């Protein structure tokens, strides 16, 4: 008898569109041409990941992106990451302030009570706070019960809303890892957008049991985590790829309608002394171009939703 059962050759989901009901198939090419507010064509969305990596965090069932490389207690790994929350973030504040960029701070909620100074500086600058789970040791995945996962989502939103005084409408699942229920729980908690799937360059409607969320395109292949952290490329290759992406998206935004360039930034990675100047140069070039502006995730969501595009 074959190890492959006859049922393997039934394809109940082989039909037009997706093989799930979270979102509809859509080709970017078919999105009608539009402009962002103020006649802008390309919005630069800077997302700053503020992450807490507990020293004894688990490495399974999902290996966290940027998780500990060595056995407990690895002060090397822990302090390298925490560097971002002390030194790196200050460099990012300076560079983003210089270019007038208000970022979305995608925060692990554990950081709010640990480092109140961070939240104070973020709020003072008018950055947007988005919820990014509790900490990097608590990833969302399908081996969690709904009750346990709901507690994580609730905790993240409640803590960040209380500490920031903001509505906190955005959600990013740490390490881009979701369970089958995460979007529903996030919608239950009153979020308006999420940014975990890496399948598009524009927002789209994302269906949940509590109504539609807007899905925003947070980059992964262009993130500092991926290029500098996982792929170990030198900073020149980061700058080169961001420049190349900008060129294509800017041209496309003028020819075919509004686009978003997502900068996914982690202070412990991009804000090392030998790397931060590259970001400074990139932002200088991006924002000097006609039709380019920066925006936060919530600003992009509200502009997009107002366009009424499917």
């Amino acid at each position, binding site marked *: 008898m*074959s*190890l*492959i059962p006859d*049922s*393997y*050759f039934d*394809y109940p*989901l*082989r*039909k*037009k*569109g*997706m*093989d*799930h009901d979270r979102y509809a*198939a*859509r*080709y*970017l*090419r078919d999105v009608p041409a539009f402009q962002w507010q103020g006649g802008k064509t390309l919005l630069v969305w800077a997302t700053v990941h503020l992450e807490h990596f507990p020293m004894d965090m688990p490495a399974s*069932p*999902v*290996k966290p992106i940027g998780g500990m490389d060595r056995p407990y207690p690895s002060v090397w790994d822990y302090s390298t990451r925490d560097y971002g929350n002390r030194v790196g973030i200050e460099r990012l504040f300076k560079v983003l302030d210089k270019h007038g960029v208000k970022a979305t701070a995608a925060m692990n909620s554990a950081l709010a009570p640990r480092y109140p100074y961070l939240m104070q500086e973020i709020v003072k600058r008018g950055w947007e706070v988005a919820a990014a789970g509790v900490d990097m040791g608590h990833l969302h*995945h*399908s*081996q969690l019960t709904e009750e346990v996962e709901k507690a994580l989502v609730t905790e993240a939103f409640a803590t960040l809303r209380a500490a920031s005084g903001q509505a906190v409408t955005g959600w990013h699942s740490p*390490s*881009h*890892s*979701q*369970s*089958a229920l995460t979007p529903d729980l996030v919608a239950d908690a009153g979020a308006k957008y999420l940014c*975990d*799937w*890496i*399948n*598009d*360059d524009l927002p789209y409607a994302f269906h949940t049991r509590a109504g539609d969320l807007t899905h925003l395109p947070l980059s*992964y*292949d*262009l993130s500092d985590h991926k290029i500098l952290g*996982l*792929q*170990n*490329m030198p900073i020149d*290759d980061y700058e*080169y*790829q*961001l420049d*190349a*992406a*900008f*060129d*294509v*998206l800017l041209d*496309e935004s003028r020819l075919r309608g509004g686009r978003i360039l997502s900068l996914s930034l982690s202070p412990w990675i991009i804000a090392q002394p030998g790397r931060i100047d590259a970001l400074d140069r990139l932002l200088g070039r991006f924002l000097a171009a006609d039709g380019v502006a920066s925006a936060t995730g919530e600003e992009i969501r509200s502009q997009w939703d107002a366009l009424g595009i499917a």
Partner: protein
Amino acid sequence: MTQWREPFAYDHAPYAGRPKIEWPNGARVAFWVAPNIEFYELAPPPSPTRAVWYRPEPDILNYSMRDYGNRVGFDRMADVMAKYGVRGSVSLNVAVCDHFPEIIERCCELEWELFSHGVYNTRYLYNMTEDQQREIIRQSRETIKRASGQDLDGWLSPAISNGETTQDLLAEEGIKYTLDLFHDDQPMPVKTRSKNRLVSVPYMMECNDVPVLNFKNISPKNYLEIIKTHFDRLYAEGEESGTVMCVPLHPYLIGQPHRLHILDEALKYVTGHDKVWLATGREIAAHFEANYYDSFTDWMKPFNPEQPA
């Protein structure tokens, strides 16, 4: 001593003194681009041999990375290819015909070839009986015919998950050429148990964006250099006997904004040479089969003494 298992799908052929391959119009290199247009299922049935996803399901990170190719990357990639008059030979998960018929329509408008890369990229041939593999081949033939009117001539096993007799089955089912063998820079006869002819056409992993960009983490600018130098060598050697160069692509990688320029510059470079035949996989296989299959088969015989059973 342990006797190793070996499928023996091809005979040995030194890369010296071969019969001279002449491509149409005196070209030195038959250049072809193979976009892999794929569908990875979010919740595929499990495989007994290989984990389908990297993370516990739903692996939304890896699923959505690939979904980008169909939503966004395909059109960008197709635009650049059309700009240089380069047709694609699509390594197609045939279920895409059902999920995304608009993509297939555009491939047909561009006069691209469609060949089979299985039904889904999350359905491997591992552990399948011969009849089950035949079922996949026949389904591929029917689906491609229905969606495009084209005959199914070529084959790349989904995720290169072939079994010991897959090449035999391909020949028996009337497939003309296979891409599963990475042993040569020229087309070659494939040794199968049937009398039907099967040609292997070079499909180059060295220039494939998945291993280059995803597995080896090579920077896009170095990927462009790999393609150019690969081409330069094959173009030089093609003066002696025609070579094949293939660039296998995946729209979810090459169609991203930070990588699209690689394709543009690579195609500009290749099409800037005059002795290049811009071909499809089917055309390369047919030209070889009609003109060189017999001479290569005869020429190879002395290099392949009978092996003890």
